[in-house]
């Protein structure tokens, strides 16, 4: 095909040092290897900023800058200064500022300096306790004339399950505008409960404020995470694991009120730590609802959704039809057709539909947590229980009346035009999927409002689902047999891959959106090896997927932060 299928790892002067920094055996290696001692000294110097720097939620005139100060001894207050420049050496200074932090904020620092120029790369650095932080790089959004958006999309970064090699590869890409994290940035589990490559801190499931803070701190000490955050602004939403598994408005599968206390209290402390430790801007005056939009000029509208804590109804508990993937449920099951069940809640749904209808942007990119496309499997006993059943009630399948309301808006009506160029970006399920979107893709008759899998006719939009950074998929599907079976029963999927870890690279211009899947070779150990897997694209006005090819990197990207 002439396509590169493998990118050689970048060899740089400090890669060996980086390797040891990333290795859990790093401390032992240092003791055994005197030649590496300077790194130990450097680590000591950077103790104050041991959690790195980060930026996020860029707008055209501001971007959030984040760090965390670790004082040698507890202090009531710490003064932190920051500088923003247009060059990595910080000589062309555009802004200086001062803020403070205290133990009540877990010594985290978050500023939102205003007055920056649009579509501009900036470099920044913090100073506190007589020490300077690493230099970070970030970028503001464009206002007009944007012709290109290039970003990485990640989700499901489970520290215990493996190394964040995908973050490391993303950090090495100098030509990205931003990184979108679609949730499960941290995981709540205790040691050995979900992954044993690395030991979580604390070693038990996080429940209290101290637990959540400690877990965030551990993730922010990861070298690959630090590298990614240092180079790119993040646009993040949470999914469930930032609090606990399969959360909804009033509870979660992995929340036991008897032993873990009040749900709302747990959400409050989990979110307190989240806002302290993440480079995100609170939205809507309600910390449990972080849905927000980012206008990338008139090229794309990034619509980030909240699907867990503000309004989600409880998952259906009516799955009674045995399938190869566990109990499934049918549209005729009790509760299924209840239109009051919601994923977004009325206010967010209204906001989303209004924005889809009115945005001047060519592309509507939905950043959201759970798969929008239908996923069905056949009943195990096709004699007694024939048909296909939804197998994951935690995704949009469990909220079909709510999903159909969005489809109705996309289709348009007598007073509202059809919504074109909808691209849904999704995380959550630790595997890679590309789908045409249709309210009932199982109906093959386009003449009767159905969907034609061969031509894509009838499709109303597309969905790209990125795999996990490290959380496990269906890793036993080494032959692709399971993925193939899923595609057989679900005609709208153009790509299903269940075993690989990595990230998506989205390349957007005015004519098309290309989604590329990039996989790392392992998460069991630090590695720089990544592989291009495949690419699909959607062209302006077509609302359906086509096979695509790897997009070229941008020429002369801004320098990476040192």
């Amino acid at each position, binding site marked *: 095909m002439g396509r590169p299928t493998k990118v050689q790892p970048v060899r740089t002067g400090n890669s060996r040092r980086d390797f040891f920094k990333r290795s859990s055996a790093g401390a032992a290696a240092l003791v055994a290897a005197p030649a590496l001692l300077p790194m130990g000294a450097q680590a000591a110097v950077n103790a104050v900023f041991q959690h790195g720097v980060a930026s996020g939620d860029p707008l055209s005139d501001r971007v959030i800058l984040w760090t965390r100060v670790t004082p040698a001894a507890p202090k009531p*207050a710490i003064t932190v200064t920051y500088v923003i420049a247009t060059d990595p050496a910080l000589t062309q200074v555009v802004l200086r500022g001062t803020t403070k932090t205290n133990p009540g904020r877990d010594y985290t620092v978050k500023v939102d300096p205003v007055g920056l120029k649009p579509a501009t790369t900036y470099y920044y650095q913090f100073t506190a306790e007589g020490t300077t932080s690493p230099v970070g790089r970030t970028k503001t959004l464009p206002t007009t004339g944007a012709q290109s958006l290039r970003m990485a999309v990640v989700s499901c970064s489970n520290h215990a399950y493996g190394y964040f090699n995908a973050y490391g590869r993303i950090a090495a890409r100098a030509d990205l505008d931003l990184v979108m994290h679609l949730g499960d940035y941290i995981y709540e589990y205790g040691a050995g409960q979900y992954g044993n490559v690395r030991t979580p801190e604390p070693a038990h499931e996080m429940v209290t404020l101290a637990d959540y803070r400690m877990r965030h701190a551990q993730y922010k000490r990861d070298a690959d995470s630090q590298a990614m955050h240092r180079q790119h602004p993040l646009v993040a939403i949470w999914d469930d694991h930032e609090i606990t598994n399969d959360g909804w408005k009033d509870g979660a599968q992995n929340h036991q009120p008897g032993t873990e206390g009040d749900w709302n209290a747990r959400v409050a402390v989990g979110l307190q730590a989240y806002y302290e430790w993440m480079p995100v801007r609170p939205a809507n005056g309600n910390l449990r609802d972080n849905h927000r939009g980012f206008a990338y000029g008139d090229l794309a509208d990034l619509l980030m959704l909240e699907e867990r804590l503000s309004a989600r109804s409880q998952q259906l508990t009516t799955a009674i039809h045995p399938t190869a993937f566990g109990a499934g449920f049918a549209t005729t099951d009790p509760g299924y057709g209840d239109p009051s069940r919601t994923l977004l809640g009325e206010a967010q749904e209204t906001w989303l539909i209004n924005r889809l209808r009115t945005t001047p942007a060519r592309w509507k990119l939905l950043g959201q947590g759970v798969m929008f496309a239908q996923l069905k499997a056949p009943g195990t006993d096709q004699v007694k229980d024939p048909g296909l059943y939804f197998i994951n009630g935690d995704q949009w399948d469990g909220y079909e009346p709510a999903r159909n309301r969005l489809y109705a808006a996309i289709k348009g009506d007598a007073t509202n035009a059809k919504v074109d160029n909808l691209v849904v970006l999704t995380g959550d399920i630790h595997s890679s999927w590309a789908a045409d979107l249709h309210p009932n893709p199982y109906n093959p008759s386009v003449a009767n409002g159905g969907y034609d899998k061969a031509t894509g006719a009838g499709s109303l939009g597309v969905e790209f689902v990125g795999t996990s950074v490290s959380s496990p998929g269906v890793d036993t599907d080494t032959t692709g047999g399971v993925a193939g079976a899923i595609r057989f029963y679900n005609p709208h999927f153009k790509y299903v891959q269940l075993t690989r870890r990595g990230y998506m690279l989205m390349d957007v211009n005015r004519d098309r959106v290309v989604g590329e899947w990039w996989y790392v070779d392992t998460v069991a150990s630090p590695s720089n090896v990544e592989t291009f897997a495949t690419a699909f694209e959607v062209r302006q006005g077509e609302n359906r997927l086509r096979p695509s090819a790897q997009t070229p990197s941008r020429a002369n990207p801004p320098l990476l932060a040192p």
Partner: protein
Amino acid sequence: MRQLIAIALLAATSAQAADLSLSGQAVNHNDKVVIDFQVAAGSTVSLWTDSWQSGLNFDPQLFLTRSGAIVNADDDGGSFVNAGAGYFDAGLQFTAAAAGSYRLVLNAASNDALGASLGDGFAYDGDTPIALASWNQPSYDFNADDQKGGFWRLHLSGVEQAAVVPEPAGWALLAAGLLSLSLLSRTRRQR
């Protein structure tokens, strides 16, 4: 007139080395609260705020002056002076070598002094006043959008007497009041 003020001061506080507290409401980001107090020789004086209240109110700082010269300043040392102070409360502690009077300026961080004397002014003096309720103080908590309250409270331990010095507008009111008093007495005398 000087005597009348002294009486007013005494009414506002109490005499002899005592533990006093003063409080009030600041309105704008560059407001300055000026407090005069007197100490006896050898007194250990503690000054601290406890009004920050985890961000309910603005983050205060203190400038201690003697004869117009700034002799000490603090932003966040309140909790070292008294356990009742919060992380961003201010505090100062000193032992007075000789008896005398001091002037204390309480304002919002980071409205820092521009020089070694009060006459040099403060960083925000030239700013158009911004209401504290709508001001993002440099130290505010971005996640909580806090420090929007204007309440301030200062505790003074080991001082003899203390009072808030009225702002120029306050002096004008006082002068007007005194004028009417003297007019009244003159009228009475004329009777």
